[in-house]
């Protein structure tokens, strides 16, 4: 994986600098800085409550950071509404699925295309003409993603009726429909069985390789993270304790301490 990382272009797509966020007395994220290289798979790991999801929530604009700066290709994201950040090309999935359950798989994906479509109120009322042409054009892209994720037979089913693993896949599809430059995946494999996990890993790798999308991944399955990540950042209690390639992170004493406890480290040393 190191080779693949080196082969990709080395400039930075997302720069997180000295970001902090507290809720009441709890310092969820404290002075965290990251540099995510373009085209990489960048994993954020850490024990529960480490601040991983809070950090992703700040990137996608769902939380407003107290301090610091988050820049996507030089554009400051802090202070923008989540919908504006999505327009800039940041898509995400949620830890607990947030699909539109009353709509079909196809409509969910078409909603992913929303920011790429432009029809106004009047043309939507009239439909025939410009709005219809736009629908057809964007339907093509939605269908490409449906093919890509092999969910052709589910197109017209309501997402509420789907099995958990498929819902996760559709949610990935909805994020992909936005044609994102940066894709934030919050525990895409949580609660899945081995087979579903392998499928999902394959899709994540395919997205990265085929579309060149930069992926920021939060995941608890260490096997997956170590296998597919180009870079890893480790958070513990809101603080970044290590970052680097998987091999470096694996050996880092601070990481071992956070994950396995100090006594284990002492035994080992």
């Amino acid at each position, binding site marked *: 994986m190191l080779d693949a990382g080196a082969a990709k272009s080395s400039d930075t797509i997302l720069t997180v600098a000295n970001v902090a966020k507290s809720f009441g007395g709890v310092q969820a994220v404290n002075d965290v800085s990251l540099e995510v290289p373009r085209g990489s798979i960048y994993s954020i790991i850490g024990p529960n409550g480490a601040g991983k999801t809070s950090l992703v929530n700040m990137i996608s604009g769902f939380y407003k950071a107290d301090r610091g700066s988050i820049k996507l290709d030089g554009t400051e994201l802090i202070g923008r509404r989540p919908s504006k950040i999505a327009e800039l090309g940041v898509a995400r999935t949620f830890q607990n699925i947030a699909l539109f359950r009353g709509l079909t798989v196809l409509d969910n994906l078409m909603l992913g295309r*929303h920011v790429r479509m432009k029809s106004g*109120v009047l043309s939507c009322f009239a439909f025939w003409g410009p709005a219809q042409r736009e629908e*057809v054009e964007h339907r093509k892209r939605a*269908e490409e993603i449906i093919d890509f994720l092999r969910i052709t037979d589910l197109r017209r089913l309501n997402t509420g009726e789907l099995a958990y693993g498929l819902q996760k896949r559709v949610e990935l599809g909805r994020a992909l429909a936005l044609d994102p430059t940066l894709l934030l995946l919050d525990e895409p494999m949580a609660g899945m069985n081995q087979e579903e996990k392998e499928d999902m890993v394959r899709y994540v790798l395919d997205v990265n390789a085929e579309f060149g999308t930069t992926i920021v991944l939060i995941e608890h399955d260490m096997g997956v993270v170590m296998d597919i990540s180009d870079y890893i950042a480790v958070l513990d209690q809101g603080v970044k304790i290590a970052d680097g390639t998987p091999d470096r992170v694996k050996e880092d004493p601070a990481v071992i301490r956070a994950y396995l406890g100090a006594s284990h480290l002492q035994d080992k040393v």
Partner: protein
Amino acid sequence: MLHRESGFYKTDYKSDMGLYRLPISRFAAFGMLVLFFAVAPLVLSEYHLTLLSLVAIAVVGALGLNILLGYTGQLSIGHAAFMSVGAYTAANLANNFDLPFLITLPAGGLMAAAVGVMVGVPSLRIKGVYLAIATLAAQFIIEWIINHSPSISGGVQASIEVDRPTLLGVKLDQPAELYYFLLIVAVIAIIATQNLIRSRIGRAFIAIRDQDIAAEIIGISVFKYKLYAFAISSFYAGVTGVLYTYYLGIASYEQFQLGVSIDYLAMIIIGGLGSVLGSVLGAFFVTLLPIGIRLAMEEIGTRFVEHDVLAQVISQLRQILFGVLIIVFLIVEPDGLNRLWINIRNYFRVWPFSY
């Protein structure tokens, strides 16, 4: 088979997005048009045509409320107030400036939309029951303003008489003429709503209803689209108000009080939230129910109550039945008449097989 999906293959996305994806639904829609445009005026009496006219007006209002509540998930108890805004706008324009309905109709809608956006602003902050209270306040505030501003309401009992609409020099004062006028507006409203719902904006509304956080994250400005929903819904309400005004020949705030807002809520709950067909069915049901009650009570009512209190009983019975029906539908069939229809349709789609 005409009524099954199998055998009808769409070969391009355009036809796959059609309003009527099966031949039978196209035939049914066409049949309905023939029924209401050609057959109904021939066979029905003038009285029954006026009833259908009332239904046509109610359809427009119910569609508007369904866009807001059924599709976007924002509760409004002030729908009737928006109607009154449209009604008085059109009445003043028609009387003071002698404008034709082609101008007063959209003008009434636009004015209601503007007021609706103002009322919708709190919806960005508050949800559910609290929004309901805010719109309830709007109902009373708008009513009070109209009632206490002679420049709007024309003074005496806050009502303005309005001439019947004219089209190409012909005054539409026969029941059949008014019926056609209202029917055409209702059909346009139905088709426009269907189009809105299958397009980008309608999907955004449903996204906000289902998961407002996820909607914002994938790039739908919840702020903007909630206001769109209030504006469009109020536009429909305003148009409904204008239609009532032309139909009754008078704009009066008494036609647009809280009870009317509740009637429209009943229509879309009984008909089916988030459904165009449901809005139409609900409008039929709620408009014709009082007539049905009266007919039934005139037949059998005297067996239970004295003849001279019958009229009173009938009007009370209407309120009671509405209350009961809303509760029954919320418990037994929250998706309303529309769901009943879908169940029947699904049964016959595979008939005579069980699946």
